[in-house]
């Protein structure tokens, strides 16, 4: 008989899983061994103290791990929930200002693109302007013709101006000198 429990005996006590006895080992033998182990634990302070200490260590490890994991899970869950802005945040002016800035910044490249697209159209319009002035002069000419045609007395039939009017006054003046 050993002085203290073997490692396997101590582990079996910690595992406390006797529902699966080792293969080929009858239940009665297992129970008898368990009785011997329990009797030894009552008598041996060293083995009982070590068993208690190991159980406490494993228990602290589990409890701390579970508690820590629960806290981390709650934090990660809160982070996932905070991805979408809360409703109270939507009511803040700063949020809407930032949204407007972002909207304008997004429209700026679009407006630049549109300006570039308008520039060729302006050049095309400039090249077409002589044609427009030519058509305007034609219209003025036709309007002038219409006005002349619609006149009461055609211009060829209007009385001519007296070409001798100036000459007659000159002749009378010379006659007066001769007299």
């Amino acid at each position, binding site marked *: 008989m050993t002085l203290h429990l073997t490692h396997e005996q101590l582990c079996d006590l910690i595992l406390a899983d006797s529902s*699966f006895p080792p293969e080929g080992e009858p239940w009665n033998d297992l129970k008898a061994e368990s009785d011997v182990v329990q009797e030894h634990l009552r008598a041996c302070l060293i083995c009982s103290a070590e068993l208690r200490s190991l159980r406490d260590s494993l228990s602290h490890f589990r409890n*701390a791990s579970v508690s820590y*994991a629960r806290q981390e899970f709650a934090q990660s869950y809160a982070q996932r929930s905070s991805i979408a802005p809360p409703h109270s945040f939507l009511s803040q002016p700063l949020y809407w200002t930032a949204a407007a800035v972002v909207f304008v910044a997004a429209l700026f490249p679009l407006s630049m693109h549109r300006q570039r697209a308008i520039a060729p159209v302006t050049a095309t319009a400039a090249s077409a302007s002589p044609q427009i002035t030519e058509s305007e002069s034609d219209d003025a000419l036709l309007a002038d013709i219409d006005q002349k045609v619609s006149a009461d007395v055609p211009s060829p039939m209007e009385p001519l101006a007296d070409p001798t009017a100036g000459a007659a006054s000159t002749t009378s003046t010379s006659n007066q000198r001769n007299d």
Partner: protein
Amino acid sequence: MASHAITSNTHSVTQQSPATPLDDMASIVATYEQRIFRFHLISIRDRDVAQSLTQDTFVRAWAARDSFRGDCSISTWLMRIALNLIRDHTRTDRFRFWKRVSETAVDVSDIASHVPHRDSSLESRLIASEQMTLVWESVAQLSDRQRSVFLLRFLEELELSEIAEVTGLPISTVKTHLYRALATIRARHNATHKDPL
């Protein structure tokens, strides 16, 4: 159970996938997410990786839900997927288990503050924190297989038969891994108590 709907007009056969308990994935995620996350977090000891692997666990479960035959519990099935993901992750070249330094890596001081203190005396608190730290550091020294089996037993409190189902190992092999893991912890435990300072 597969259901076949034959429409007489079009003479086409519409085959629906069989209904599985995993079809209601929302309730399964709500039930098991925290537990799967805990196992990933303590196994990998990295918050971001644990979150990512937890999501991957349920994505894989959803993708493979048709292969779930119900011969084990959903919890065991999910834990098996989680364990495979951890194994795949720790096998990558980029990952150096327990040695990786990252901002989201879990430090022992993070855990130590969660040691419950039923007794408010300073001495008992220090002893409890020391015992927890001892196990935490000892687990880091275990092999991947020993660590997984140890955590399934002493963190998730699975029975040996359930651990055998999750890992695909015989119960005797599971016990052997637990004996060795406990031997490592016990050796460190005894060394600490014999030479406290």
